[in-house]
């Protein structure tokens, strides 16, 4: 894959994404309130929170699929619309966004058909590295859920976007497949070094993948706490005491966020 181009050590860490004073409401219903976030280049951030707290809306604002009501969102110092125009955003949703009439390979190529970026991955090689070498010419309905999701993520990163947005991509998968894909994604991002934002309901998932976890409180969504995950990579030892400690710490923050908003939603 891409040769990693690490920034010189002397330069100060640059903000890849800067969100300031973000507010958003759907009609009279406030969804997000006073969101301030800075993401460094290559950082992996998870958005965790009770359902209906606006995590997905925040992600969609970053993708340019929703507009913010108030506040600013900048990607590399420019508005989201600019990043979108430069096709620097890749997005993968919980449900794999694949065309049923296209093979795995042609579904990944679909991204490149609408892209005019240079320095993209070769779709065939990418799928081989994703362990799908034998399934290039299979149709989505012939693939398992885990395979479909790998094709989906391949389609989201094949144009080598600066920013990878993941909306519960593993939410619908079984436990073992999910854990295997966590390890696989973490490994992938170590190589591609993309800035990534993940929306998830799973504390384990957030701890396994993230540099930082933003815990949102419910309606309107506010950042209740911002936690750094202090674990060395690769984080394979899910039975380790250190891992369990981090999971407990994040889970405690999540419960606190739920309590602060007046208990779990009905």
């Amino acid at each position: 894959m891409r040769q990693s181009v690490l920034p010189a050590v002397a330069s100060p860490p640059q903000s890849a994404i800067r969100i300031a004073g973000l507010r958003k409401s759907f009609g009279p219903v406030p969804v997000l309130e006073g969101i301030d976030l800075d993401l460094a280049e290559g950082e992996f951030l998870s958005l965790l929170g009770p359902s209906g707290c606006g995590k997905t809306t925040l992600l969609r604002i970053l993708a340019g699929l929703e507009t913010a009501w108030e506040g600013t969102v900048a990607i590399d110092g420019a508005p989201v619309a600019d990043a979108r125009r430069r096709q620097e955003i890749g997005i993968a949703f919980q449900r794999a966004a694949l065309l049923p009439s296209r093979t795995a390979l042609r579904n990944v190529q679909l991204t490149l058909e609408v892209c005019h970026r240079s320095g993209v991955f070769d779709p065939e090689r990418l799928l081989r590295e994703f362990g799908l070498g034998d399934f290039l010419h299979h149709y989505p309905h012939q693939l398992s859920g885990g395979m479909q999701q790998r094709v989906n993520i391949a389609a989201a990163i094949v144009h080598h976007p600066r920013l990878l947005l993941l909306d519960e991509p593993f939410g619908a998968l079984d436990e073992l497949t999910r854990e295997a894909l966590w390890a696989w994604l973490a490994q992938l991002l170590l190589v591609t070094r993309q800035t990534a934002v993940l929306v998830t309901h799973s504390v384990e998932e957030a701890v396994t993948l993230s540099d930082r976890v933003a815990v949102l409180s419910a309606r309107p969504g506010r950042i209740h706490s911002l936690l750094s995950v202090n674990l060395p990579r690769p984080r394979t030892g899910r039975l380790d005491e250190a891992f369990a400690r981090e999971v407990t710490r994040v889970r405690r923050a999540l419960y606190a966020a739920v309590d602060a908003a007046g208990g779990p939603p009905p």
Partner: protein
Amino acid sequence: MKRFRRAALAYLLLFASIPLLWEAFIHFSHLPGVVLPPPSKVWDVLRDEPGILAYNTGVTMEEALLGYAVANLLALVLALGFIWFPSTEAFVAPWTVMIKNIPYVTIAGILLITLGDNLAPKLLIVVLVCFFPLLANLVKGFRAADSVLIDRLAALNATRGQVFRKVLWPSALPFYLAAHETSFTGSIVGAIIAEWFFSRKGLGYLVVQAMSDYRGDVLYAVNLIAGALALAAYFSCKLLERWLFRWQRPR
């Protein structure tokens, strides 16, 4: 393949048994030849006047195909208008509801006295017959497009044309084909009805003429031709569907 061969055999039996049943029926019912001519007489018509029949078949098919093309174009443009500019639907829908619900045979009389005996009123009738199922199915198909996929392409700054080609059209295709199957044969029916009303040529005109002359044999010959055309249209739809959805078949 075995299933396919059995289906072919069933059709073969159907076509072989029709003349046999026909002859048997005449033999037992003692109906006069004017009312029910024997297959041999119908065959004579087909053999003796191929030029006239071919010419009039050509006229009918031209009207049917041209009208069908116009109906398709119109349905596609309107369906995309509904999807991309939702307010157009609010303004156009009452018109489509009204026009659709006036029986087109009554509109035909108006078209005759306003437009006269030329191609235009016949095309209009074919369009009236074919247009509405095409429009309804296309709109339904476009609406059935995967919103997640559309979002993914939107995040890539895809153009409207790209979203149409890559997502909307593939998703509308099964719906479109369902409408195509009924509308394509419907276009032939529409053309014949139009000729029945006002024409000096075409299969519909042959029917009117044969009726006034009490030529049962010609009527049956025209029926055979019209039936063959409609069947050919139907099978062309099925073949197209098989080819377009070949990816769904297990390999």
